[in-house]
């Protein structure tokens, strides 16, 4: 009897010591099922492809590290509200996922968000930039930077660098995206006390911008703030430069495409944009991600892939903190994420579960996008 108890004592002490010495290796990884709602088929499937590629890469890396074991359950929404809702209900009720990533579009989030919130399932959008997304409820998060945050960053930097006192504005008035970009620009200009010399509008597919540009040129602004998609934006830039408007241009995220350089050539130089994702950033983490992604999928990761990649890492971080696959613990852990260092840069959630981060401000110089200092 005595012998046996002594054996047990030694054994338990030994076990204790061992457990303390190598805890991570012994502890089982925290396992969780995470649902993904994305556009796999139909128009917009290119976004879904980039997004799910980003998720899969992050999942493989996280699982390989062994601290968490994430199983992704991917559902297709086709970009449709009702299909996104059905996918969410399936993930929440029959698959019993711990959290959901997606859906792709803000319009889809407007119906899926309330459903997830009511069921107490944390949901994080990786590409939803419309206003009012995280205000749906306390279970709704996002890591995609809205234009209303990106534009002031680029405006502020350009104003400081070029000592801008007055600006002319030009925007597409028949597109929700360029219109809201313009609203953000105007607000940023007012906040910085800039003088607005003139506000000009154009419509999608317009060919001739000379009338607006002649007017802008006559008001002699220090810079032009232009909210346009790249197709129109590139043509505006090219016509403006040819008319001798050599002032810097500040554009929104719609302007942020290498196509601008293809179309406008050297006229694109001097365009300042803000973007959450910059693939050519001189940062070892970004370089490693780009290289690995390019090897796996044969093309450079775009903004959507990068945002998805960081989003699953943030989920993994929260899962580690939560310690178990529990929806409420997961929500609290997510809400507590601060200063996470991802490929997009330093990331935090604010009190409303919305994005806090410094976007990259880029300028086109010598025919390519570069960091603007």
């Amino acid at each position: 009897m005595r012998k046996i108890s002594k054996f047990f004592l030694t054994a338990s002490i030994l076990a204790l010591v061992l457990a303390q010495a190598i805890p991570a290796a012994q502890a089982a990884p925290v396992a969780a099922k995470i649902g993904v709602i994305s556009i796999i088929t139909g128009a917009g499937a290119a976004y879904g492809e980039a997004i799910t590629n980003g998720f899969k890469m992050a999942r493989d890396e996280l699982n390989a590290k062994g601290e968490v074991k994430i199983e992704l359950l991917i559902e297709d929404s086709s970009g449709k509200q009702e299909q996104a809702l059905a996918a969410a209900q399936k993930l929440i009720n029959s698959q019993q996922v711990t959290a959901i990533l997606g859906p792709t579009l803000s319009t889809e989030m407007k119906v899926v968000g309330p459903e997830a919130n009511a069921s107490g399932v944390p949901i994080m959008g990786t590409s939803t930039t419309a206003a009012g997304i995280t205000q749906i409820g306390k279970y709704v998060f996002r890591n995609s930077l809205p234009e209303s945050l990106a534009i002031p960053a680029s405006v502020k930097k350009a104003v400081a660098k070029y000592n801008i006192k007055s600006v002319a504005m030009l925007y597409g008035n028949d597109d929700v995206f360029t219109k809201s970009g313009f609203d953000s620009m105007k607000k940023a200009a007012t906040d910085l006390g800039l003088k607005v010399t003139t506000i000009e509008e154009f419509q999608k597919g317009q060919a001739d911008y000379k009338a607006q540009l002649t007017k802008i040129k006559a008001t002699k602004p220090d810079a032009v703030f232009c909210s346009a998609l790249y197709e129109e934006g590139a043509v505006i830039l090219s016509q403006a430069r040819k008319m001798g408007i050599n002032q810097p241009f500040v554009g929104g995220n719609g302007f942020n495409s290498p196509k601008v350089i293809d179309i406008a050539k050297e006229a694109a130089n001097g365009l300042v944009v803000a973007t959450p994702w910059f693939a050519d950033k001189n940062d070892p983490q970004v370089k490693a991600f780009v290289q690995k992604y390019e090897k796996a999928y044969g093309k450079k990761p775009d903004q959507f892939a990068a945002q998805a990649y960081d989003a699953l890492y943030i989920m993994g971080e929260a899962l580690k903190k939560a310690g178990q696959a529990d929806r409420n613990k997961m929500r609290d852990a997510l809400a507590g994420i601060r200063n996470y260092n991802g490929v997009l840069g330093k990331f935090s959630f604010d009190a409303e579960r919305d994005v806090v981060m410094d976007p990259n401000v880029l300028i086109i110089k010598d025919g390519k996008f570069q960091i603007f200092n």
Partner: protein
Amino acid sequence: MFFEQLINGITLGSIYAIVALGYTLVFGVLDIINMAHGEIFMFGAFVGMLLISYFEAPVLLALGGAVLVTAAMGLLLERLALRPLRGKKGASHLASLISTIGVSIILENLAHHLFGAGNKPFPTSFADASFTVGSTTVYLVQVIILVIAVLLMVGLSLWLRKAKAGKALRATAENLETASLLGINTGRIIVSTVVVASAMGGIAGVLVGMAFNYVNNQMGLPMGLKGLAIIILGGMGSVNGAMAGGLILGLAETFVVAYGNSGYRDAIAFVAIIVILLIRPQGIFGQALPEAKR
């Protein structure tokens, strides 16, 4: 700034006028609206763009290439989409309208396949060359467009008034049967009308590329709709009407932006057209009784 905007307006207006001339010629002779004209115009722009960017051709050569290709397209259009329907028993007057819409859709998609979607730059070596008169900056490209447009319009007017073929064309436009009785080969006149109209579309395409620095496969329809509005404004089938209407629309669009609100650019330009039509329903140069000419 007034004179700069005036020059902008005249440049834009003369391009509109050349597009509208293509419509009005075909309408005058055939009494049909050629909905494929906008797409032929777009092909002209692409041919010019390809010649200039890949072969570094001078502007005149680019214009020549565009004229050749679009004239050939006009020939094919007449053979394949217009002639088979002409004079066919039971064929509605609208049949050729529908067949040209079909051609326009085919051409737009063909351009998508050949050239891809999205804007393509249209490089010109003299794009930013300019000179100053008083306080007004004039761009060389605007002068070139204006010269080409004026030459084209004057040439066309002279040809229609003086040349034998031009007179035959006017006679055919006046009355097809009578012209044919008078010994005019109306079949040939119809072919040459469509070919000349298409070639003018090709020239307009190159001018647009030069003026706006880009081309894309979607540019045909908006330009075509403006061309249609112009011939209604100027008077269907009237050559002078197309020129005047083009200039009015170009100037109206430019001055709405210059002294009004750029958001209402298209709206106000078209309101102006409606007002003019209320005063002169037949169009500025249209004949009061269109029935009389048939």
